């Protein structure tokens, strides 16, 4: 008589994985539930852009030879949130975007706090901001090179930033060339 094999499985080769079916069914229910929940409460996405304070931007722009990009936005603005999600929280788009400009975020707080800080008011007045989002690219001489109102989609937006920053590079005052990735 042959010795008993270690770890021998008795019974037929067909085994119904009941536990796996229960887990799969529970996960399917959880999938639908979390899908509905996240439809109404989307998860927080990280901001991958290193924003520069408005006061420090001109010095930084001169140092790195890139134009300044002012992103005028507000927390209640839907297209601003779409831009945040599709560009600033997207690793690829944010990395491309950051190579062209020195980014400065200017957030309007009038609806939340009743007033803006002096620098926000001043920048909005200088660049004639009347809608959000408004994005202005400013050359080394402080003059606006180009401006965009609204969010036309991530790819179009990043392409516009690349084109406008290239135009800014042609303007006098920006020393070193902007690297094109």
């Amino acid at each position, binding site marked *: 008589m042959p010795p008993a094999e270690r770890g021998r499985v008795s019974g037929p080769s067909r085994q119904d994985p009941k536990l796996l079916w229960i887990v799969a069914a529970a996960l399917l229910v959880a999938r639908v539930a979390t899908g509905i929940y996240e439809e109404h409460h989307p*998860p927080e996405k990280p901001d991958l852009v290193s924003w520069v304070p408005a006061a420090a931007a001109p010095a930084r722009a001169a140092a790195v030879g890139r134009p300044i990009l002012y992103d005028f936005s507000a927390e209640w603005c839907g297209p601003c949130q779409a831009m945040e999600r599709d560009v600033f929280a997207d690793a690829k788009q944010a990395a491309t975007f950051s190579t062209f400009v020195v980014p400065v975020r200017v957030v309007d707080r009038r609806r939340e706090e009743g007033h803006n800080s002096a620098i926000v008011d001043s920048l909005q007045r200088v660049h004639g901001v009347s809608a959000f989002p408004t994005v202005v690219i400013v050359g080394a001489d402080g003059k606006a090179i180009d401006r965009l109102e609204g969010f036309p989609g991530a790819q179009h937006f990043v392409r516009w930033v690349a084109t406008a920053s290239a135009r800014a590079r042609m303007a006098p005052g920006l020393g070193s060339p902007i690297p094109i990735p």
Partner: protein
Amino acid sequence: MSTLSPLAGIASPIALILAAGAIGQDVSSGTLQLLLVRPVSRPSVVVHRWLAATLAATVITTMTLILGSVALVIRGAHPDALDLIRMVLESLCSAAGSAAVMVMLSTLVGGLGDVALFFATLILSQMLEVLGTFKNWGWLVRACAEIHGALSPQLSWEWMLHGTPPSWFALVSWASTVSLAIAVGIARLNRRELSYAAG
């Protein structure tokens, strides 16, 4: 995005290649019939084939990432350790997902029919997605996106780097697809008539 990120993307295709015909070829060649003469259960065959393809794809991708990191260090760059861990985890999840789907398809058809089934579903869903986009049928576009997600389940670990909470929907979707694929694969193999004549 990390310089090494494209390397992490090879996990899914490698898992698909390794899992292609995992069950179907053994059925067609009669190997599985011989294997089941031994005290081996059908569910364990499916699970072990899935694990083998997943582990092999993950090891190959991890080795590639390590070689890429060494190349970067030689060139003077210093890859982020946490980013490397993220890419290995993403590779593991992609490999596990793709291998589970391919093993499931492999239990449905013989030989390498699973590869044909995979690409036929992929191409058909892409064509339907184009149609949905053209006709502005949101439901069709969404359904096709779900099919794409089910064919190559992936899980992003990007949140680990930024300290933000993960998307529970993404996590549960990935786990749900993998568990369903394995369960369907086992159920199909359990019901399959295996004999030398059934080929």
